[in-house]
């Protein structure tokens, strides 16, 4: 019987060049799209609106949150939590929880004055040109919106914007 030929095991080599190319493409994509920001935005369930416009106010707007740290997010936790103890008004870079007009008026007045001194701009009626952006959770008692309005009047802040999210398309 003829002795069977031994099969030579052939080596398989992979060309990794395309993989390296794709990886570099991904890295360049991430580097170009990345924006480094500090976390001043709190997680809130924004209200929905049909008619809102996309305004570039975030860059210089003063952000005020109507916030509850223990509120569960999303539709699953959507039941209104009207216990006022959990909800409060939060200002940027401040730990204090504001609940009344008296507490909120002074810091807002200070912020408006700092803005006026920095920009040197005032409206004809002596009102600040600072934009105040309210990022309110849709479950928050609207009483706190009234508190912010009254504090803005005391601080002579006239321009107010309300942050919303557009409805998702079907």
């Amino acid at each position, binding site marked *: 019987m003829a002795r069977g030929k031994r099969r030579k095991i052939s080596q398989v080599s992979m060309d990794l060049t395309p993989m*390296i190319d794709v990886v570099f493409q991904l890295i360049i994509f991430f580097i170009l799209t990345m924006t480094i920001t500090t976390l001043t935005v709190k997680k809130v369930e924004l209200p929905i609106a049909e008619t809102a416009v996309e305004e570039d*106010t975030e860059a210089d707007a003063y952000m005020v949150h109507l916030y509850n740290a223990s509120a569960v997010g999303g539709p699953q936790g959507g039941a209104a939590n009207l216990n006022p103890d959990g909800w409060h008004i939060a200002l940027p870079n401040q730990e204090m929880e504001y609940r009344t007009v008296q507490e909120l008026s002074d810091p807002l007045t200070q912020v408006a004055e700092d803005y006026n001194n920095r920009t040197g701009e005032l409206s004809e009626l002596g009102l600040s040109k600072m934009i105040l952006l309210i990022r309110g959770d849709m479950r928050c008692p609207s*009483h706190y*919106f009234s508190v912010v309005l009254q504090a803005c009047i005391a601080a002579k802040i006239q321009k107010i914007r309300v942050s*919303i999210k557009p409805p*998702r398309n079907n």
Partner: protein
Amino acid sequence: MPRKKPRKAEAVEFDLTPMIDVTFQLLIFFIVVMKFKQIEQTQAADLPTDSGFAMPTDAPQEAIITLRLKWQNEIMVYDVCVDTAASGRAQINAGTLTQLMQGRDARDGYKRSFDELVAGIHKVYNLMGKQAKKLEISYNEHNTGATSLEAPELTAPWGFVTLAMDAATQVNMDIEEQTGDPEKKLSVVFKYTQPQGNVKVAGS
């Protein structure tokens, strides 16, 4: 003199393995730290340019449409009316906050309430002969968290106030489109009743 040997060109090889390792490290870093930003838009709610609050009787009652937010037993009912009895009214049941937020798509519950509220405001506006000048969004400001026995109408969730603002904006857009005159738009004010019974009005 001995002849010099010609130098043989040597092949230089790079080991790319460390470079691939670093590249993957970078890639994993970017994937882990990346967070997608939620799309946000804004609505204007500018305050009046005159000083302080306006008295509730600032304008003739015939020219004011009142949009009352009645929040009771966790259900929102919008009551669109004019204080003079001659004009009609419209009531829109917007349901619970959960209904507003839930659904296969949050837009379903919101769009229905939004369309009904816009239609209700238009109905009252037309019944007034299109002479209204102001739209008051009126809500209670109870902040005590009391039970329904002590404060049957607690303050409405913020999501329903923004729905009212949204409907007011749509009505103004419709009026401007129909008349071609921006001066005909309704000025929107917020009117809220405090626990002490004081009524205050603020708005653009």
